[in-house]
């Protein structure tokens, strides 16, 4: 055995290849420079006979073997010149992210300044902080610009979404929904069917963008996943409410037309304006109305829980649009353009479906008596005014001036979403 310097020594003890010795060997060789030598001592002749082929398979070289009389077998291995992983070395161990009372929040995984403004479209599925090995197949992500998708509080919103999960099978007092009179069940079911129909669109829109987001923005992936999951539960709960009373409602073609145009929007920010700010924003008022006027506790609970989720979605939309416009004021015109294009496609829509306004009126009245119906109709008119007023406020919060806010609100679909 010849070596420029004396080799490091590793006592294999009773360990064998395939039985843990390979772990010790890899750890020892990992820390050695190319060409350095490791002498492995083993009492097992079998292991000594196998070590050279193990070394070659791992790219190293067995450069000497000997057996001292009565002593252990020794195999000298020269470390491979090849990198085991084709990547930069791992950074030195740091402190790791901070904890808040023992909780590890997504927002604390990296400071906002470290969220890259642009990432390579070909980036791989590399978890935050990980060092990517070269040679992986290239992806072609479409959303690779932070400012095109980001909201400053996206991590906190994701956190809230995780904490606010609920169960549409068990958290709703379903028994309470049984036994409404026919006229009332029919009205409630029509409203529930309408909401469920709209929740489908609220699911498909973020789902359509989810798979385009570059994996370098995991906070966005978590956020959109939570959004999709929320909407799936909304579809679930409002479908269940429409069925529990035994009286299905209509899925209206006019609603479908409106939602179809919403799904046509393929720009992330355009969709955030149309869905999160305008559509879900308007639905906040609708859900509050349903919660207030629900004739049964199940309908009330479904509307309240969905409302809680929609608040997050609307918050994201406002936060994103505000950031988007602040980063590039020219985007304001593009966003207004998206709303105008959608409105142009909806010219054949005359207004909110009479079946829905009638349903809401009966729900609010709780009876078919003229006096109560009149009160119900007044409540629905008030709802429409509230919707418009709040829509304009949200648009203002998103960064539009009063004139643009009024214009955008006027362009909004009569279908509410």
């Amino acid at each position: 055995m010849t070596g420029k310097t004396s080799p490091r020594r590793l006592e294999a003890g009773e360990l064998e290849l395939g039985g843990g010795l390979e772990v010790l060997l890899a750890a020892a060789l990992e820390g050695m420079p190319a060409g350095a030598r490791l002498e492995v001592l083993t009492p097992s002749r079998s292991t000594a006979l196998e070590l050279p082929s193990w070394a070659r398979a791992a790219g190293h070289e067995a450069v000497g073997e000997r057996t001292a009389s009565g002593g252990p077998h020794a195999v000298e291995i020269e470390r491979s010149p090849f990198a085991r992983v084709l990547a930069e070395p791992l950074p030195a161990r740091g402190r790791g992210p901070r904890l808040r009372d023992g909780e590890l929040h997504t927002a604390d995984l990296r400071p906002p300044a470290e969220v890259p403004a642009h990432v390579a479209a070909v980036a791989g599925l590399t978890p935050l902080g990980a060092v990517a090995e070269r040679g992986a197949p290239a992806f072609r992500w479409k959303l690779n610009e932070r400012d095109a998708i980001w909201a400053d509080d996206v991590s906190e919103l994701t956190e809230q979404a995780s904490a606010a999960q609920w169960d549409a099978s068990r958290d709703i007092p379903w028994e309470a929904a049984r036994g409404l009179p026919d006229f009332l069940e029919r009205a409630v079911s029509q409203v529930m069917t309408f909401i469920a129909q709209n929740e489908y669109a609220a699911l498909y829109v973020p789902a359509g963008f989810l798979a385009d987001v570059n994996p370098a923005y995991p906070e966005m992936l978590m956020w959109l996943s939570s959004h999709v999951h929320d909407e799936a539960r909304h579809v679930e709960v409002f479908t269940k409410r429409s069925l529990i009373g035994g009286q299905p409602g209509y899925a209206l073609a006019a609603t479908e037309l409106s939602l179809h145009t919403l799904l046509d929007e393929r720009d992330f920010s355009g969709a955030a304006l149309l869905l999160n700010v305008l559509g879900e924003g308007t639905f906040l008022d609708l859900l509050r109305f349903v919660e207030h006027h629900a004739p049964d506790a199940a309908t009330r609970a479904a509307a309240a829980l969905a409302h809680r989720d929609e608040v997050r979605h609307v918050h994201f939309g406002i936060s994103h649009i505000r950031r988007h416009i602040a980063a590039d004021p020219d985007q304001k015109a593009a966003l207004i353009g998206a709303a105008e294009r959608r409105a142009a496609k909806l010219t054949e829509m005359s207004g909110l479906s009479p079946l829905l306004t009638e349903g809401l009126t009966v729900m609010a009245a709780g009876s078919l008596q003229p006096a109560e119906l009149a009160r119900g109709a007044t409540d629905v008119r008030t709802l429409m005014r509230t919707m418009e007023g709040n829509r304009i406020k949200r648009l203002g919060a998103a960064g539009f001036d009063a004139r643009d806010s009024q214009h955008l609100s006027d362009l909004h679909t009569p279908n509410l979403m």
Partner: protein
Amino acid sequence: MSRAGAEVRVGAVAYHPRIVTIWEAFLEHFDREGVPTDYILYSNYDRLVEAVLAGDVEVGWNTNTAFVALERRLGGEARILGMRDIDSQFATLIVTRRGAAFGEVGELAGRRLALGSRDSGHAAILPLHYLAEQGLDAASECELVRFDTDLGKHGDTGDSELRVIRAVAEDSADAGALGEPTMAAFRADRVPAVADLEVAWRSPTYYHCNFSALPSLDDALARRWAEALMTMSYDDERMRQAMDLEGVKRWLPGDRAGYESLATAMDKT
């Protein structure tokens, strides 16, 4: 890009679908090195040797058995253009059940010895040869348990060696021969049958595969192609996967020194 005008056609045996993956990556490497190359696959080494002799391919990616067969047919020396690092230090192991290892090969007399495909240099021909050199005529003194699977592929598939180690593990053989790299791969893959086996014997080293060509291949072309092969780097991320599949970390020029034992062994058969 059409490969119709490739300067070098390499013949290889399609013992596994991954051969296509390997060669598609290798062709890109040869393109980058300016020696446009194509590959043609054969189902067995007899056909590949015929193809080299007939000039259907300029280069054959031959096992040691195929290389010796090629030279026999030539009646002279073929040209060696390169080999893998592992081809230059190949050995055969004989394994037994744990605790049943033998000290001298003579102790195998009267025992059951499992061998891989009879056309495999490393799993059948050479173990018999080296045991004979060390004084054991296994063909007459042992009960041979042969697994002649995938004949024509010279043991490339590893199937017969898997049967060998299972036979030993299940006590339907007392000892079994297989190639060193196959054993290393079984260990790495945690193949259950090897867990209770130990290595009792290792043969002297010999050469395994090589890229071989007829002596008439143009010198300059042969040199350019071999140089292009040698530049292939395991640290090149475009090549690592294909090189892992081919079991090579580094290509070596190769020579004839390590084929004598097999030629001698095949002369006797």
